[in-house]
């Protein structure tokens, strides 16, 4: 690919120093599964300093616990997340989402931070991260901050990160006692760009009263969305079929409300409603995991 300079920092500190000092426009490459696709489309990186952080996986690729949170290193690959015992225990919906992304070869190399930074509306991990209320840890020469999923992405393929920002980790509050469902609708069964995803988390008490509920739709909105108003519809009640139908209706109504009426709305809105209802029925009919 065409770039001005190629820099391979030896450590996170080195990377931060590079980010602070480099003069050219900055392009960060991790797994590279998006960057190398863009590089064949045009010369957009021709004047950039390409900073290759893939070698920092030792520092930035770990998955660990930090009290009530799960910390996923920015360079953890989708394959590593999908099979991480910690993720499978505390955030299995993320494992499911990561397992559904692209093909094994891409999952083995593409990183979770790259998926976030690329900000594709069809990225499968984003919906799961949104319902998990994940926070993205960002470091820059100015310091460190955390952003929520709906803050970090501005619109399709545009994140809210500054040129010298580096995603270093994803913080996910550990969840226990939740049921989850990640549903991916694609035009084929493997390595498919999502037509729509649904991610749902549900926690009920022993009486069947919903303690917590979170649902979102992916590959549909310009950025990852959370819908506290929809979530609230089930919290505190023992849902009857009519309640589930109301949730499905409310969720699917978000599509024209937020994304506007498009050619795809005639398909996506009813499909979203039907899938939402199916998922809720599955969750409520099934056992807690």
């Amino acid at each position: 690919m065409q770039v001005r300079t190629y820099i391979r920092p030896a450590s996170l500190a080195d990377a931060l120093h590079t980010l602070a000092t480099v003069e050219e426009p900055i392009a960060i490459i991790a797994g590279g599964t998006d960057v190398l696709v863009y590089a064949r489309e045009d010369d957009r990186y021709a004047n950039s300093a390409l900073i290759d952080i893939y070698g920092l996986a030792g520092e930035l690729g770990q998955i660990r616990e930090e009290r009530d949170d799960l910390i996923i290193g920015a360079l953890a690959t989708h394959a590593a997340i999908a099979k991480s015992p910690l993720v499978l225990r505390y955030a299995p919906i993320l494992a499911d989402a990561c397992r559904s992304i692209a093909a094994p070869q891409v999952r083995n190399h593409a990183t979770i931070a790259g998926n976030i930074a690329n900000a594709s509306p069809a990225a499968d991990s984003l919906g799961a991260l949104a319902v998990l209320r994940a926070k993205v840890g960002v470091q820059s020469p100015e310091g460190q901050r955390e952003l929520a999923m709906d803050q970090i992405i501005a619109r399709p393929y545009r994140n809210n990160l500054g040129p010298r920002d580096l995603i270093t980790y994803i913080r996910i509050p550990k969840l226990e006692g939740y049921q989850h469902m990640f549903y991916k609708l694609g035009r084929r069964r493997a390595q498919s760009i999502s037509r729509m995803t649904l991610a749902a988390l549900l926690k009920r008490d022993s009486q069947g009263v919903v303690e917590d509920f979170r649902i979102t739709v992916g590959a549909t909105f310009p950025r990852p969305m959370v819908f506290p108003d929809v979530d609230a519809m089930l919290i505190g009640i023992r849902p009857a079929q009519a309640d589930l139908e109301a949730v499905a209706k409310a969720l699917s109504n978000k599509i024209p409300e937020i994304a506007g009426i498009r050619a795809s709305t005639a398909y996506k809105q009813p499909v979203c409603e039907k899938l939402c209802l199916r998922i809720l029925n599955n969750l409520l009919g099934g056992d807690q995991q």
Partner: protein
Amino acid sequence: MSQVQLQFRLNGKDYSIQADPTQRMVDLLRENLHLTGTKVGCGVGECGACTVVLNGEAVTSCLVLAGQMQGADILTVEGLSETQIGSILQQCFVDGDAVQCGFCTPGFLMSAYALLLHNPHPTREEIKVAVSGNLCRCTGYVPILNAIEAAGLRLAAEGK
């Protein structure tokens, strides 16, 4: 882009070469090293014809930067015969008529190699997942899945 010194292990041999780190790994393999067994079918990581094994995992070498080969251990189709799993896979592909035009074959072999490396006795479903990033237009996949299944059984018989 200027060249840098890259050191890596490839098909069991140590390499130290001058190369452009911003080229694709597949171009380094094919153009610099003339290892043309690794194919380019799409350039966007969809067809899997360029699959190689990088540090024990299958990756599409059209989406890996050459600079990321630094320090890595890489296996391509040219090195497959030197491995137990690889040579069994090759024989099972020939025996099971899993090869037609053959353009996708190296990629399938490498995905299958990575699978058997970690999971010597995969189920049919696990095999399908492992090669779901490899497209074949000739065989309808069944002979390929059968061949990988047979290789798993042969490995089991050989006590792997």
